[in-house]
């Protein structure tokens, strides 16, 4: 077939049609020609979760994992009793929330995957900011911690609001509503310590 030319195209196409009709797997079905599009299903649901359900859940796991890591730096680095207590309670909440989020994925038969690892993500500290947090102590650490967690909870709130109107299932809608509510409360308490 390497000698196909413009002038020979009709016969070449005829041969392709014949080959298709005879049994080539990619040409299966009643399709009359090689260039006819094949109807496809929209991938709306995976194990009961929509694409947005999966995207939000994976993103929150990535955000919470990082926030929990940062929060757990506080006992040894923060200079503020109030901030240490807030960080401790918030880290506990994140631990419980992570268990629930991971259950959402595993119940749907999906792997616990972090597609955002290493990325410069809204609501998360980047590698440089993380190094600064790990090196800081006292008031400087407290300032960096507050900045990172304000960003985290502000982003969580925005995502929770988007989930309300997005193509999401009931379980994720409930989880996001609870997450958004906790984010508002955590921000309020952070500002008071």
């Amino acid at each position, binding site marked *: 077939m390497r*000698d196909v030319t*413009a002038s020979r195209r009709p016969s070449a*196409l005829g041969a*392709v049609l014949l080959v298709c009709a005879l049994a080539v797997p990619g040409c299966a079905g009643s399709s009359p020609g090689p260039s006819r599009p094949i109807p496809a*299903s929209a991938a709306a649901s995976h194990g009961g979760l929509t*694409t947005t359900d999966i995207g939000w859940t994976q993103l929150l796991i990535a955000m919470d994992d990082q926030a929990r890591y940062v929060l757990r730096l506080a006992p040894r680095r923060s200079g503020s009793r109030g901030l240490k207590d807030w960080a401790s309670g918030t880290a506990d909440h994140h631990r419980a929330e992570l268990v629930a989020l991971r259950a959402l994925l595993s119940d749907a038969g999906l792997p616990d995957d972090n597609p955002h690892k*290493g*990325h410069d993500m809204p609501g998360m500290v980047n590698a440089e900011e993380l190094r600064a947090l790990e090196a800081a102590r006292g008031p400087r650490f407290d300032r960096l911690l507050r900045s990172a967690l304000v960003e985290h909870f502000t982003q969580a709130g925005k995502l929770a609001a988007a989930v309300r109107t997005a193509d999401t299932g009931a379980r994720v809608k409930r989880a996001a509503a609870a997450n958004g509510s906790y984010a508002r409360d955590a921000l309020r308490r952070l500002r008071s310590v």
Partner: protein
Amino acid sequence: MLRTSAHPPAESPRRRRAWPTALAALGLLLATLYGGAAAPGGATKPTELDAAPQAAQVVRVAEFLAECPYSHRLPDDPIVLPGLPGASHMHSFFGSRVTDAHTDVTDLLGSSSTCSPAVDTSSYWVPTMYRGDQPVEPTGTTFYYLGEGVRDDIIQRIRPFPQGLRIVAGNAKATGVDDPTSVARWSCLHHGEVNPSKDFVNCPAGSMLESYLDFPQCWNGRDLDSPDHKSHMSYPVNGACPAGHPVPVPKLRQVLRYPVSGSTQGLRLASGPGYTMHGDFFNAWPQNELARRVTDCINVIVKCGADGRPS
């Protein structure tokens, strides 16, 4: 010369030379077998003309293309995080001018596009490149649709992508240059002597940093997307589509050229180092325009331009 033209398949043998030794040896063997067509520097020239006199003007490469300059930047991803604006790392979008987190195929169809041809209202996007904190957008943005990668008898039964098909290529969380899931390659325009790499390469002054990324070209024939956004598509195996992904579709080759040369210090993608380069494609070609190009350019193995006519 080959590297500035619209002959992207010419790049493949060059890139192979930088692969591990075994592949390099294979490349040399192939170059030897097709020695008569070898271009200076050892790259095999794939665009040999048909020997038949009446075909003198037809280049026997299954190809058409769309030139789609940069459109806009948003921290959105309508494939991975649909409906969640501001949730993603920063993306640079090409093609349709309307793409955001809420975009579906119906939004893309008939939308304004940066592409030539303008009928291609598909959306293409990559992680934004930064030099320090400054975004750097590519000034060369060609999206080739190719038959290569599968045997000729399979090229002849390549089907158009279904409308709304979403494909992600490359691995946004690749761990290093040895990570086999990192499939994008960086090279230097006009400077084949600089070995291509999965990470950024240092290009001589006057050159441009370029990224090549081939998308998988075998479809499972059923799903427009999948939970990991990858498993409904597959790369071919031994020149054929594997049993689980039996439908051959055109291979999308994304070629981006960035106005970057010299040190790669401070250069990064929104997804991390150079080896995290990845690309997203959301098909919104009008069905008739895509079908015509697949029939007239791909199936019959003829090189076409942006208009989908033999060039």
